[in-house]
């Protein structure tokens, strides 16, 4: 239940999945500050350990 329904909902830096829906159709990951909406880093999944 915890796994399904609860989210950490971090106010700060978190790593997210993004999908380029109306573009190249790629999944990417981004390290984003959810407070300032500043994207610190982005990369293809698996590129980084």
């Amino acid at each position, binding site marked *: 239940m915890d*796994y*399904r*329904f609860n989210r950490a909902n971090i106010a700060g830096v978190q790593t997210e*999945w993004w*999908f380029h*829906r109306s573009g190249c*159709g790629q*999944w990417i990951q981004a390290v984003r500050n959810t407070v300032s*909406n500043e994207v610190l880093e982005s990369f*293809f*999944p*698996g*590129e980084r350990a």
Partner: protein
Amino acid sequence: VEFFFQDKSTQAKAGDSIAAALYRSGRRIFSRSFKYHRPRGLLCVSGNCPNCMMNVDGVPNVRTCITPVREGIQVKSQNAFPSLETDFLSATQHFDRLMPVGWYYKTFTHPALWHAAEPIIRKAAGLGDVPTNKPAAYEHSWMYPDTAVIGGGWAGIHAALEAAERGDQVVIIDDQQALGGQLRYRKGAGELPANAISKLQNTRNVKILQGSSCFGIYEGNLIGVLQPGPNPQAAERLIHVRARRTVIATGAYETPILFQNNDLPGVMLSTGVQRLLRLYGVIPGRRAVVVGTSSLAEEVSADLRAAGVEVVANIDPAEIIAATGKGKVGGVRASTGKFSCDLIVVCGPRVPNAGLAAQAGGRLEWNNEGAAFLPVGLPPNIAAVGDAAGEIPPNSVSPLSTDKRAFVCLCSDVSCKDLCDGIAEGFDQIETLKRYTTATMGPCQGRMCQLPAIQVCAHETGRSASETGVTTSRPPNPSVSLGALAGPRHHPVRRTPMHCAHEDHKCVWMDMGGWKRPRYYKGHDGVSESESVILEHRSVREGVGIIDVSTLGKIEIRGRNAGDLLDAVYTHRFSDLRVNRVRYALMCDEGGIVLDDGTISHLAEDRYFVTTTSGNLDFVHQSLQWHLVGTNKDVHICNVTAGYGSMNLAGPRSRDALRKLADCDLTSKEFPYMECREAKVGNVTAILLRIGFVGETGWEIHCPAESAEELWHSLLEAGKEFGIRPFGVEAQRLLRLEKRHVIVGVDTDALTNPYEAGLGWAVKLDKQDFVGKRLLSHAKESRERERLVGFILKESGVPPDGAAIVIDGKPAGRVTSSRYSPIQKAAIGLAWVRVSQAHEGASIQVRLDGKLAPASVTMQPFYDPEGLRLRQ
């Protein structure tokens, strides 16, 4: 130029705004106020205040003071009955004692009270009426300049020139009718920089959006711009401007000061007077009193004298007590004496127009020297310049009046006294005071009232303006019509490769998730829908029918690990699916909720062909990709939906028809139910799936889209001797319902798990982890609450989708699909019922036409329960 005001012909000069033309013709009252219906006249003449809003050609709340006159337009007043001069509801102001601040909250303490009062209040209070005529056309466009300059005054002109000389692509957004800002109407501000303006107009990399307003700055430096009348076809165009750099040069605007009857027609801001004089050549009055002692007051006095207006007196803002007169200004009462006049010119505080800067990420900070809030902390690619950044003459702090007829907020009639009462009642923070009194929340977006409201709040609470702070500026600023935001009404349509063939067969179209699909074929005889569905149904059950199913989502998956990927995403097992076999595929989310279904065919060792429902294709494609990224698995996923045309040939004679074209053995021994082959059908290489959504022997045939129409015609030709007939979505829905086949999204919803929907057989909990496994295990162990069952109605009639199931007089479920079945000679359907009713023969009642119709539950298909026919 001729136009019509209240259906009466009115003359205007070319270049006039509507309000200027009306003022010249003698009109002084332009609107009636929101709450008390007090008469209001021109105040700012710059589109900042709410006083001149009228209905123009059916569009309500048009700021007539900045809207140019066009030939023949129809201008009408708002919120006044019978006329602007005599408004019966102006009597409400004498009952203001009964309507104190927070009146709504204090009076309507019970919903019933509000429901009784609402229609009366809605009619009495408010702005214009929502237009009901044909909606205008709107356009959207996009621009990507290096530099966007908002504002065409001296600061904007210089910023744009500098950027253009640097080689930038520049866009200037100016809401006035010509570049120059206040230099156009203030002699005292300096000469109009004609050279700079013509240089801008003749520079190729500069684009000037004249008469266009910027209504917001959004994330990623996106600027929303509204351009009225970009061409004769469109009422408005919304331009998305995304610039590398933005310069906010929005200038400053003048705000009113507070004294009794400061809203009387004839009280005008000094810049408003200057605009009337210089831009439109309108003499604003005969005898004027100028309120203000700064150089700005001297400037406007000189302007007035030059135009032949007598300046009766020049008084200090601290001295003025009241404007007198009935319906319009007749004089001034001041501490130094009484003056008779027909115009009161107020030199109010200049407020930097910094709302956009605040939206763009800056803060507004109180600056004591300028007595104004100035933008600070802007992001690096956004700058504020000129008056907007605070390069204004210092304001003198205006005196406060606590009179109940000294209006702070003109939009919703909030007086100084109302604010003081609100503060006394405990709403002493500026943001709560705003919400309680609605000051700063009207159509002027706080431009006229924000500074006075802050000053009153600061004064009453004993705090400084800096401590009091400022209300939040939000887009849109100014207002934007919803039509412009919605944009052009484009409906892109997807057509299947056989579209023209359906049209030739006289089909009736239906829209399904962006696609056009034949609902039924009325044929050349023009049969009705119900007749046609019966004919189509019969041809599938007794002969052969064909339906276009190109809208199915189709995904091809190749690679050594393709089976593993499908195992991880779908609930069934696919890694053990033998080549040439087809299996039903069910997809759940992490919560074990049914998301999508389709079939998966194993075409070759490393090649699978997946179908999805039309609407879920993108989602399924995305989630398959998500499971793959970063895993280094040998899998390639390709969405081939548009690459294949698809059709389903079904019916007891379908084999006879297909045999004439296909180069493979179609006998059930060689090509049994739930198998697939690649074969040539006529000249076309196709994928054949022997599956039976409609419950008869049949093949789903997928072929390259460019050959699909040809194959469709060949199959129709081959089936002619067996009475082939194309069938549409309606017949398909009926056929599948007789087989009790579920449509995900129609018969299931966001709470449906596979067990309750009767799809538990497609879930393999004994395989490795897959999406939803944990909660599906849990769901299997838990007691079910509802089940999806079949029902047969015992009376005539067909219940609508969503009809209630009633047991013992209480709602106990709902119908998801229902159709009249020619096989059962009764309405059949699928419905959710409580588990206690989910057994063969249980009696339920269905709400139908306001009555309850008896029905009996069945857990079996309504047709061919053993499934013999589709295996034949």
